[in-house]
């Protein structure tokens, strides 16, 4: 649905060059919620602004719903008619909501419809319908300043949906909200994704956002995407930074001659009593350093950090046993490369 290839953005100011995006290849499938996570300055904002050409990329292409937007942009600094039409089919929500304070909630939602040249009656019908969808039907006549942050963002979402977009871009939509409101807004995005088949590309610096709504995720660092894939793939990828950030378990090794192993369960494996089987089969004492079960991307996932007596070399057989059970094993202190070979 959204594809970027070789997307590069270089900012030039007073002779200095800053590369915000360095050849980003992103592929968002239709109907999925895709999260791009990274620290401030990683280039997330530039990325999402390049998708609807609010920022013009220095190089590379952006294709949304089969339409090459970079080709529509032309050479001038201003957006031509075709690009503006394409933009009206891409909804966008912002961290600071960006509602017009001089307009009522309903008039804010009607704004994109005014731009599309819809008649007054059509506009108000559509706006009220959307406000109902986001649960704010009773606030139609209120002004944004009278709403809470979460309500403002709901208006922002209703407004973004006014042009019946297939794609919704979310620029840190929950970063200015408290945790509880964040959850309700994310739930709304998830519902819209499922009810309307909306494809959502969101950027965030909060791991929880990715954890609770995303089907796929990408980790961005210094203008590059360093890891990406569906959440399931990421959790299954040995040594994945995103996976361990999505699902952290803590606990330190008790001593030098110990092996610490992270065991990740998903699907069937989660129901098997593997740890007691391991203990009984090899007659070893296993200490559990930390464990957690959570839902990531709608999947039940468990992760456990266990400690086995003896060095890694002494534990090759028990670790092999765990792998045979279809579990994902990460041995701490071992190179991910080795693990990858071991997993195959």
């Amino acid at each position: 649905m959204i594809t970027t290839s070789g997307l590069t953005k270089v900012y030039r100011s007073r002779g200095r060059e800053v590369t915000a995006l360095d050849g980003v290849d992103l592929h968002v499938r239709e109907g999925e919620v895709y999260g791009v996570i990274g620290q401030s300055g990683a280039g997330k904002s530039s990325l999402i602004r390049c998708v609807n050409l609010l920022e013009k990329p220095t190089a590379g292409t952006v294709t949304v719903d089969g339409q090459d937007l970079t080709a529509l942009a032309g050479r001038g600094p201003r957006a031509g008619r075709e690009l503006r039409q394409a933009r009206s089919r891409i909804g966008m929500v912002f961290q600071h909501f960006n509602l017009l304070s001089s307009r009522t909630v309903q008039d804010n939602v009607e704004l994109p419809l005014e731009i599309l040249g819809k008649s007054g009656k059509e506009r108000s019908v559509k706006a009220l319908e959307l406000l109902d969808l986001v649960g704010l039907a009773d606030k139609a006549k209120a002004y944004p300043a009278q709403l809470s942050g979460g309500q403002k963002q709901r208006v922002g979402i209703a407004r973004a949906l006014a042009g019946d977009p297939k794609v919704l871009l979310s620029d840190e939509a929950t970063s200015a909200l408290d945790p509880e409101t964040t959850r309700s807004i994310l739930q709304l995005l998830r519902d819209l994704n499922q009810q309307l088949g909306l494809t959502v590309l969101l950027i965030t610096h909060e791991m929880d956002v990715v954890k609770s709504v995303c089907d796929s995720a990408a980790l961005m660092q210094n203008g590059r995407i360093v890891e990406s894939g569906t959440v399931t793939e990421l959790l299954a990828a040995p040594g994945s930074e995103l996976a361990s950030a999505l699902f952290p378990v803590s606990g330190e090794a008790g001593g030098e001659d110990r092996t610490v192993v992270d065991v990740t369960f998903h699907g069937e494996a989660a129901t098997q009593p593997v740890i007691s089987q391991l203990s009984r089969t090899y007659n070893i004492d296993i200490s559990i350093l930390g464990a957690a079960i959570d839902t990531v991307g709608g999947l039940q996932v468990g992760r456990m950090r266990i400690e086995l007596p003896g060095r890694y070399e002494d534990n090759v057989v028990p670790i092999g046993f765990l792998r045979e059970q279809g579990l994902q094993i990460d041995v701490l202190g071992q190179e991910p490369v080795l693990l990858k070979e071991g997993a195959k």
Partner: protein
Amino acid sequence: MQPLLSQACWDTLYMVGWSTVIAVVGGLPLGILLVLTDRGGLLQNVAANKVIGQIVNVARSLPFIILMVALMNFTRTITGTTIGREAAIVPLAIGAIPFFARLVETAVREVDGGLVEAVQSMGGNTWTIVRKVLVPESLPSLISSTTTTIVALIGYSAMAGTVGAGGLGDIAIRYGYQRFETQLMWITVAILAVVISLIQFAGDYAARSVHRRGGRSGPAPRLRLLKAA
């Protein structure tokens, strides 16, 4: 004495009223253009921005009485005369356009860039952004700027007496200064004080009520009023 004063009052309001209308009509687009053509603006054009900015600066820094004399030929082509109320309106309006344009520029610059971005993301063009974002969002400040301009124009209009346009300033000079009729002078001062207070009050009220419609509490921005005083 009374017909004299009421005529003077009427002359002042007539001159100030028309020149305000022209100043707003001319200054509003000019001020918005100053923002749009600036670096990073929607219609970025550094050369045009410099030229407009320079014209505005020069026009603003000219003392009004000189502007009035300098514009005499221009005034004659427009009104057919260089004497009287109509003739005074031309330099008043031309003096007030750049003044108002600068105030508009400051007001429009304060509009959150995120709002512009939001309308761009909806597919809005520059004209849509001006009409639906920049002007309505800065309306309270624009109203305050208009008030400031009116008050400044009342000040300028005192000098319009030199081209025979009448008005309260003219009375104060001719009767109060040249004929030592102190009482009449103080009456004009009092009338001017009342008129200015009323205009200021009405302007503040209008700005605040527009502002309050947005639900934000607190007084309308008065900073710009102080600067002009």
